[in-house]
């Protein structure tokens, strides 16, 4: 056998306080789908950025078909035939599809020719896309297609995909896999980054597993069980959350016919959302990103009011109340974005504890703050949720993602809410912290609180929820018990098949 397509030998990259990649070596063969498997923080992103020329390695090197490959910038990587689809899309909302694609090419043809080529490629690979549409108006799946087509137009030898399925419905995932298999058949290699084991077993020829910056193994995933792969990825086994049998109480939170206009031009309007949650129950709300999740939590937290419909907590309508009144009544929320929304990045943990707990924990007297109490509560959260930090006076942004998320969730849980609504509670969090957070939510439910978990991680929802619903374009599907729900059903719910149900109700 000759040289592989890409040989990575001894790549090392250190950041202050952390070695992101430590002497990583592996080969990617021609026409191979190669998985890069690892937890959040295992060093996958850094490694890929080095291949794509965004980050320069401290040590080690790469060869592309035997020739030294050291791209100083993405342009050089693209010129050498390496293309990348980012996890957080590098797209420009206000520009149209063709302009977005032109920006990722070295020598783009004229707009009209480019539009024609986009149509051609999108048909060949089964990725329908209108080149003149403004990207901000596209769904997450369509936005991903923009990125993929941008890559394909340059006939890449190696296509890097960073967590591509996290924004897709199961049906869309199947379409993507067909596209990738077709590419492979045409001789393109794919570096497929994921932490979803079943996907990797289904799609990839080879897998390299990273843990804490080091390569654990390179193997053939089809020959391993998901359990074996998980053990390699995580290292030690951790406890999966225990769902105890619970007695359900009366309805605590009832959202009735809630509609609200989109907050921004490219946002989603909520349309007649209705659901109920009982004491002790966990309701899971799934859906592809950008289908109203953010808008729903803003409407529940009280950050946005002025819609129609009701938000009833134990029979009291809080629909027009602001966040402070809702918290006082017992409706607590934890939004997706930790830094800048759930927590103020430059403020200390004490100040961040004060942020949402001031009313329920009695930290304000006559308008004056009791810093002692706030610090005490911050300490309590840190201790109860095992938040790794030198102390309460550290800025929120100095914490790692997992630790900050534990702090944010802990801050709400320890206030003893009647209802807790969380959005993406374990997004970008390492497995151990994720397990701890899910356990805390389940424990809170067991204690009699009503929980709403909004998440794009279906596995997570299946693990913690009693009932499941999906958001699609701001509408909520029918809500069904999790037990007995099939993947197909979930996919249909997420894909908006409830249109039929709406018709049914109307009719």
């Amino acid at each position: 056998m000759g040289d592989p397509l890409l040989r990575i030998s001894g790549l090392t990259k250190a950041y202050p306080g952390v070695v992101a990649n430590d002497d990583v070596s592996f080969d990617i063969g021609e026409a191979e789908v190669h998985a890069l498997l690892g937890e959040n923080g295992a060093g996958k992103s850094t490694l890929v950025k080095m291949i794509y020329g965004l980050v320069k390695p401290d040590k080690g090197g790469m060869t592309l078909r035997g020739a030294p490959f050291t791209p100083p910038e993405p342009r050089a990587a693209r010129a050498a035939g390496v293309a990348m689809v980012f996890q957080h899309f590098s797209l420009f909302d206000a520009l149209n599809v063709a302009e977005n694609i032109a920006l990722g090419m070295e020598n783009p043809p004229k707009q009209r020719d480019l539009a024609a080529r986009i149509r051609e490629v999108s048909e060949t690979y089964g990725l329908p896309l209108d080149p003149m549409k403004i990207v901000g108006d596209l769904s997450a799946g369509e936005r991903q297609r923009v990125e993929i087509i941008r890559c394909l137009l340059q006939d890449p030898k190696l296509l890097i995909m960073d967590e591509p399925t996290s924004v897709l419905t199961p049906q869309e995932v199947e379409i993507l896999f067909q596209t990738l298999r077709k590419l492979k058949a045409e001789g393109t290699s794919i570096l497929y980054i994921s932490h979803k084991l079943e996907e990797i077993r289904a799609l990839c020829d080879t897998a390299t597993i990273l843990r804490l910056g080091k390569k654990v193994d390179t193997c053939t995933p089809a020959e391993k069980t998901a359990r074996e792969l998980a053990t390699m990825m995580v290292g030690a086994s951790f406890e999966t959350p225990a769902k105890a049998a619970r007695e359900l109480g009366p309805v605590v939170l009832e959202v009735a016919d809630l509609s609200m206009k989109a907050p921004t031009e490219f946002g989603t309007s909520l349309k007649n959302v209705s659901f109920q949650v009982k004491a002790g129950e966990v309701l899971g709300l799934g859906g592809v990103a950008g289908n109203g999740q953010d808008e729903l939590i803003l409407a529940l937290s009280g950050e946005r009011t002025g819609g129609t419909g009701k938000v009833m907590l134990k029979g009291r309508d809080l629909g027009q109340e602001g966040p402070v009144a809702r918290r006082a009544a017992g409706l607590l929320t934890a939004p997706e974005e930790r830094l800048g929304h759930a927590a103020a990045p430059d403020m200390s943990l004490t100040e961040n504890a004060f942020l949402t707990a001031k009313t329920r924990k009695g930290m304000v007297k006559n308008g004056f703050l009791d810093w002692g109490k706030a610090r005490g509560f911050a300490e309590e959260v840190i201790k109860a949720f095992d938040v790794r930090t030198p102390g309460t006076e550290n800025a929120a942004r100095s914490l790692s993602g997992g630790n900050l998320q534990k702090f944010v969730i802990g801050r709400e849980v320890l206030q003893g809410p009647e209802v807790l609504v969380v959005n993406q509670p374990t997004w970008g969090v390492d497995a151990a912290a994720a397990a701890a957070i899910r356990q805390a939510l389940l424990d809170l439910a067991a204690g009699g609180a009503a929980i709403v978990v909004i998440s794009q991680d279906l596995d997570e929802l299946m693990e913690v929820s009693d009932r499941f619903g999906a958001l699609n374009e701001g509408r909520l599907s029918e809500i069904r018990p999790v037990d007995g729900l099939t993947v197909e059903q979930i996919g249909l719910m997420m894909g908006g098949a409830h249109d039929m149900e709406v018709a049914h109700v109307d009719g």
Partner: protein
Amino acid sequence: MIRLEKRPQPSQLWTYLTPVLAVVVTMVLGGVLFAFMGKAPLEAIRTIFWDPIFGEFAFYYRPELLKKAAPLILIAIGLSFGFRAGIWNIGAEGQYIIGAICGAGVALAFYPTEARWLIFPLMIVAGILGGLIWALIPALLKVYFRTNEILVSLMLVYVAEVLIKAFSVGLMRNPEGMGFPGSRNLRQYPAAANLELIANTGIHWGVITAVFAVIVAQVFFARHQFGFNVRLAGQSPRAATFAGVDPSRLVIICMCISGGLAGLAGLYEVAGPSGQILGSFPAYYGFTAIIVAFLGRLNPIGILLAGLLLALTYIGGDAASSSMNLPAAAIQVFQGMLLFSLLSLDVLTNYRIRLKKAQVA
């Protein structure tokens, strides 16, 4: 190669060190500027920064220092609320002028009644209200029409300047002034005058109010919920709405505070050191106060010190212009450079500077 690396949290040390360093850097740069203009740099620096406090004529300058510092501090304290919350009231100069017009208006309306117990407090209320209303215009427009408060408040400065010019030759002109522009001199109207409370100290009501404002602001920022909300909204607007802070209310309150204090400063000035409504009344205090606010790190105590320092540049600048023929504009350049160096040096607060050897790949 030099690389900037974001600190996990802003450096406490540099937060306090940068203003001092900025002053030093500006003195050096200023010295270069003065030398470039053919003035002896060291002498100029000494004339501006040393002589007014410790020199031969310090007895004259020291009271002046407090008189100049008071409006700067008062305005800057007001601005610090808005700036911390990310609300950019750039039109303090206009609010200052309108405060002076309204306050003087009350006094002139009552002239020559001798009822200080009524007139002076009424003037204070009018001064505050005048500045407050002038600041409320951009605030309300921002809240209801999402217009940019920077541009609106600034446009209103020009309008205020036109107004005071018009009033000084029209509505408020001194009927006994033999046709000269300018209102009656309030210093000569005991019911309305804001004179020195203790002779030859420079301490008038404005100075006392400024010190009071510093203390109140300090307490608010450190211990009161409102101060916390202001900081939160400035650092992280979305976290602030999440915490239940109403951004519209915050805009209005912060603009009212800064407008009211600027108006008050204008009233004290027109009734005291300046004495009358005149086309040349605006003294750029409203703009210099922006520098004071930043140099003081938006911290009340810092603003107190920064206000004194910038007052010193005014007085020292005057001294240097009479003794060394240094143009008045040089001081303005100097103040601009001070803000530049402060902002530049702030990079040290938020970033670590790493020297990295260029790698040969």
